[in-house]
């Protein structure tokens, strides 16, 4: 996810200084993000350099500058929002690598690994359902959608693990 466009999106609503950008971001993503204030400062400076944002007020002594979007910044945000996500799918979870290697390493106990992974996914589905319910109870329908997306991904992960188990079993049946 792009911090650059996240910041542009927040500044499109109203001018904000760096710390306010950080807290708004945290609230927007329901506490599920990973970025520090230093990154926000650096990104704001780059955006200013490229003419996408500008100080909304003259720089004060304390260095808290509220930034706002420029016309160019608005245009860039609109273009980004209109584009579908088309980058390569990221299979970053370690389980993929583990499964690929477990199948190659002689003592890799694939069925046991699959079983353990299955339990993790089942618990994850439960946890996400709890979070979705909590988000719903406080009226955060945008976060409900975030958790629903995670639920669907996890359901797919579980199906994949089951397909791996089935394929492993079929392989063993053939060996008999």
């Amino acid at each position, binding site marked *: *996810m792009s911090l*650059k466009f996240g910041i542009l999106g927040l500044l499109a609503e109203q001018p904000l200084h760096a710390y306010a950008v950080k807290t708004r971001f945290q609230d927007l993503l*329901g506490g*599920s993000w990973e970025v520090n204030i230093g990154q926000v400062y650096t990104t704001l400076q780059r955006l200013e350099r490229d003419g996408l944002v500008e100080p909304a007020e003259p720089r004060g002594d304390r260095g808290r500058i509220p930034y706002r979007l420029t016309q160019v910044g608005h245009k860039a945000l609109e273009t980004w929002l209109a584009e579908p996500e088309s980058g390569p799918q990221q299979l970053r979870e370690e389980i993929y690598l583990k499964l690929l290697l477990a199948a190659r390493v002689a003592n890799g106990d694939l069925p046991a690994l699959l079983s353990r992974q299955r339990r993790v996914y*089942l*618990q994850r589905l439960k*946890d996400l359902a709890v979070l979705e319910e909590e988000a719903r109870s406080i009226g955060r329908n945008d976060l409900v959608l975030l958790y629903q997306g*995670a639920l669907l991904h996890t*359901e797919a992960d579980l199906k994949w693990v089951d397909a791996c188990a089935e394929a492993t079993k079929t392989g063993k049946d053939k060996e008999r």
Partner: protein
Amino acid sequence: MTTLVELTEVSKTYNGAGARAVLDQVSLDIDGGEFTAIMGPSGSGKSTLLNLIAGIDRPSGGRVTVGGEDLGRLNEGRLARFRRARLGFVFQFFNLLGNLTVLENVLIPAQLHGTRPALARARAMQLLTDLDIADLANRYPAHLAGGQQQRVAIARALINEPALLLADEPTGALDTRSGEQVLELISGLGREGRTVIMVTHDVKLATRHAGRVVTLIDGRIHDDTRLDGASPLPETMVKVRIDQEQK
């Protein structure tokens, strides 16, 4: 918690061409007050397992005990009484009698059980109220939506106040929203301390509502997972990764 349902090396084989064990030496204990989901692909034996616990079917081998009662030792008459008194069963396609009203459908198990008519009626009306369908008491099933029919079936399953509720794909014939509502009702029963065993193929529904998920594959228990229902920290579940542009 005490064990309410105990299956010991239970097998079931149907006779016929190429007889294959639908259930193969399944052992499973379920405690009173547990909400257990039974999952598995088609033909994995989940409905058969439920029917054996319900005493609708008898095992080819092994023992099924419910509430300390060894079902294999009961003759058909006693088994029928046991089912009426101790079990409620909810089916995928509701199985309501079309020529009886909602209230009459709900009353059938109580009448068979010999409950006093006034008491049975009061209990039925209370259940219909709890399930938010009291205004449908005098309607016929054909005039009800699927979700409403399933509520009637749940009321019927609960009229004799059974310790154990069995549900076979209770949302299978319902749209998503009605299914969620029906599942909310069933998990509410679980929270009240009733024991629920539900067969479903929907893993999201199973994990959301049940505290335990048993997965069957080819008539055997493939996995048995107990789930922790405590609220997790959001960042441990969904991590939105923010990349910084390197320019």
